[in-house]
Each structure stands twice: as C-alpha cells, then as structure tokens.
C-alpha cells in the first residue's frame, strides 16, 4: 500500500513527511494527505474493490494508511437505501439515504474517521489515543481504543448530559470532565495535544482522520453502480465531511474508477448554528463565528475548521446550502422514520429538513438522482423528539376495549 506521498499545506502547498502533524509551520494552514494517484491507478480496479472486505477497508488504496493491519474492521459499507416512500412524498423519482445510523461499532459516521485515525496512530507508534468531543466522536474513539487495547483519553465539557457520559464510560477510557465553557475545553485540548505525545484524533491526527469521510463518497458511487449522484445533501459541523465527500468523488475519477463527477454538493445546517450556510446564502466566501444554540448538538460547531473549504467545494460543484429550524429538525427526523423506518439523530433531521427545502426551492429536480447522508442513530438523541412523538394508546386488558378503541370490524381495523 503506502500510496501516501506527503502531507501538504492546503494553503501554501508546502510538503511535510507523513507524521503526526497538522499545521503548516510556514503559514499555519491546515495539512492534508497527498497521494500518488498514478501509482494507485495502476493497482486499483472495480473488481479489486468488490473482492475486498465488506467495510471501508475495501478502499484502503485511497486511505492514509500503510497496512496490512486495519483497526475498526467493521466500519462502513452501510446500506444505500432506495427511499421510495420519502421520494414519493417529496416528489423525487430517485432518492437514496446513505444510512450511517447503522455504522459499526457505535452507530454514527464517526466510526469511519476513527477507524482510519486509530489505524494510522498505531502505525505511527502511538499507544494513547485521545479526542475532545461532546458525543459521537467520543463514543467511537472510546470503543475503538478498547478493541485495539490502546490507552484512551476523552475530554468532555463538564455540563454534558448523563446519557452521553455513560456512552463513553462503558468502554472504560479516561473520561475527563473539564470545568468551563466550550471555549475553555477547546483551548485546553489544543494545548494538551501540543504538550503530550498522544494521538489526538481531531488535532494532530486530523489530516488522516478526516480522510475517512471519503469512504462515504466511495461507497455511494459503488452502490449506485459506479456512477455519481446528481445531488448530495450533507450535514455540516466542521464542514470536513462535505469537503471530503467532494474530494473522494474526484479521487475516484483520478484513479479511473469512474469517468465523470456530475454531483452538486449541498450543505445542511441548523439555524441555531449555521455559520457556513449563512455565509453561502449571503454570497460570501468567508464565515463569521457564532455561539451555537440548537438541538442538533452533533453539528454545533460555531467556528468550523473547514468552513472556508466547504464553501469552496459547494461553489465548485455548483451546489447549494440551506438551514432549518429546530422544529424542522424534529419534523425531518419524524418524516424519515415514518416513511423509511430509519431513526436518525438530530443531524439526520437537519439533512432531511434541508433536502425538503432544496426540493421546494427547485434546486433539486424530480428526476435528479439524489443521495441524502444520514450520519447518526436516533437512539443517541431521543431527548430531541421525546415531546413530539405522542403517547401510547392505553386500554383496559380486554378484547372489547381493544376493538372499541381501534373501531375494529370483522374485516380489519382502523387507527385509534
């Protein structure tokens, strides 16, 4: 394998060795992985991919790892669901849901990026892995570290909900609650990453970690029969997921797996934290930081690291962006559950809400092949919908009571 050529600054282009570094020493721009696409092109093929493992690792040639040992062996290859019912409701002929609510092992797309990060961290000789997180990332890092037998530190804000803390503690990492607000946690973690020789997945391992998101693009194309969709609707937190899906689609073309990329990339945020979508709608190529206030907590990043690049990718693809209210987020979760049987977390509600808007505004047309990315499981954010799903119908324990309540006749029944 070893098709990585270097880490390269996204701003000034200066190259660095493929170590645990993430910031250009010249201009302080972010680093990303550069590959030898000619070399990959010689070895990769559709058949080789399809003969590979049923996980993200079938695309190991395009991931920043040396192999042959891959940690997180079950991440990826989640279903691409043909959403006929939701499509009919929205007026779309060909709608798909890329369903990462069932990603393994922790039921969010973070399992993809963490599998890549922890594999690379091990290759670089680290024995301790860490992250700063309020939810999905912490769960995934803690689970992967447990399975890999690595020491793990998870840093969380002191006011995190009990259920989310439990989701980390069960894997027995060192969970560190930091007294202070989000900015305090943010800054301390940056300092700790600089001081200790640990693999901090979303800091010094970030160039590798972020590449794992490309597998959502790779799998989508393969599952569509080796073609790109007309539209992708992608939730945005840091904006990294969107930029990497865009990068992944183009890499498939560079290495000869597909002939063209025809996808328009569309970004989705919640109104209470929409620095990127707001900038897009205002026609700006820069965003202004915000203080998040939304139920879509997994997307609540007020000063997103890849916001600028997400705006750039969307503009390049001639795509769009939009945002939805918290009420629309809940409606989106319910709509997806009630049409397709998929229970998404709040970020999924954001995606479905924005998908609806893009259709309504004529940006996505009836005949467009559209893929909506649903990135986390609804069981993780049940509190968001607890007041919006009604109550069970309560009856006395008798057949008569049941039939009376449901107005049953001999030929079947109705709703209560």
């Amino acid at each position, binding site marked *: 394998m070893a098709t990585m050529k270097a880490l390269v600054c996204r701003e000034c282009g200066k190259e660095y060795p493929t170590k645990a570094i993430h910031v250009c020493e*010249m201009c302080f721009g972010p680093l990303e992985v550069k590959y030898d696409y000619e070399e990959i092109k010689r070895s990769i093929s559709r058949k080789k991919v399809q003969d590979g493992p049923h996980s993200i690792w079938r695309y190991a040639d395009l991931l920043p790892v040396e192999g042959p040992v891959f940690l997180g062996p079950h991440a990826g290859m989640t279903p691409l669901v043909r959403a006929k019912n939701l499509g009919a409701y929205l007026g779309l002929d060909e709608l798909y849901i890329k369903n990462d609510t069932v990603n393994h092992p922790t039921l969010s797309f973070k399992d993809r990026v963490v599998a890549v990060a922890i594999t690379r961290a091990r290759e670089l000789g680290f024995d301790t892995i860490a992250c700063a997180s309020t939810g999905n990332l912490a769960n995934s890092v803690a689970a992967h570290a447990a399975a890999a037998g690595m020491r793990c530190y998870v840093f969380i804000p002191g006011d995190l909900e009990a259920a989310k803390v439990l989701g980390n503690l069960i894997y027995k990492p060192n969970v560190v609650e930091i007294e202070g607000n989000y900015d305090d946690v943010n800054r301390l*973690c940056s300092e700790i990453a600089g001081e200790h020789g640990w693999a901090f997945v979303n800091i010094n391992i970030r160039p590798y970690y972020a590449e794992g998101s490309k597998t959502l693009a790779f799998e989508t194309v393969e599952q569509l029969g080796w073609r790109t969709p007309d539209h992708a609707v992608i939730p945005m937190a840091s904006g990294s997921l969107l930029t990497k899906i865009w990068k992944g689609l183009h890499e498939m073309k560079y290495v000869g797996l597909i002939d063209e990329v025809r996808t328009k990339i569309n970004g989705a945020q919640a109104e209470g934290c929409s620095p990127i979508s707001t900038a897009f709608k205002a026609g700006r190529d*820069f965003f202004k930081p915000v203080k998040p206030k939304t139920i879509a907590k997994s997307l609540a990043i007020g000063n997103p690291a890849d916001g600028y690049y997400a705006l750039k990718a969307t503009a390049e693809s001639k795509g769009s962006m939009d945002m939805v209210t918290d009420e629309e987020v809940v409606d989106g979760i319910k709509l997806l559950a009630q049409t397709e049987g998929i229970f998404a977390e709040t970020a999924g509600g954001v995606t479905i809400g924005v998908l609806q808007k893009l259709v309504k505004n004529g940006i996505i047309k009836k005949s467009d092949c559209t893929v909506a990315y649903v990135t986390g499981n609804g069981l993780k954010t049940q509190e968001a919908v607890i007041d919006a799903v009604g109550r069970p119908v309560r009856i006395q324990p008798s057949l008569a009571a049941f039939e009376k309540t449901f107005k049953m006749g001999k030929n079947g029944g109705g709703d209560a």
Partner: protein
Amino acid sequence: MPHVKVHIQFPEDKIKEPVIYQIGHEYNVVTNVRRADVRETTGWMDLELTGDSAEIERAIVGLRKKGVVVDPIELNVVE
C-alpha cells in the same frame, strides 16, 4: 521561549483598530502574523504569540477584552 498559535477574528467595528500593535505594546509578547484576510466587513489572522506563558495568557485575555474572538489555530476541535 513558549509560543502559542492562535486564530483571531475581528468583529466589524474593530477592523480599523491596530489591535496587534496594541497587544505588542500592552503585553510583553512578540506577535508574528503568518496569514491574514482583512476586508471591509471581516478580518481574521493566524498568528503566533511568543513570550512568558503567563504573559501570553494575559495577552489572550486582553485580545478578548477588545472584542476579538480568539481560538486555537485548529479553530473548534470539540466535535
């Protein structure tokens, strides 16, 4: 000598103020701007602060008191 890399963002009404110059005078830190984009309605800089740790800390508090948003160079890392 300790040094810290930060990303700072100016609110619109602070763009014309010589904030970096002021910080260099008010605190015993060396400011080294590596990348910046300053326009009529927005402005940000990636810079390095070098000096005694406590003095760097005071300078960051000072920047915030002037209404400047100060983040680590990686921006928001809590996901």
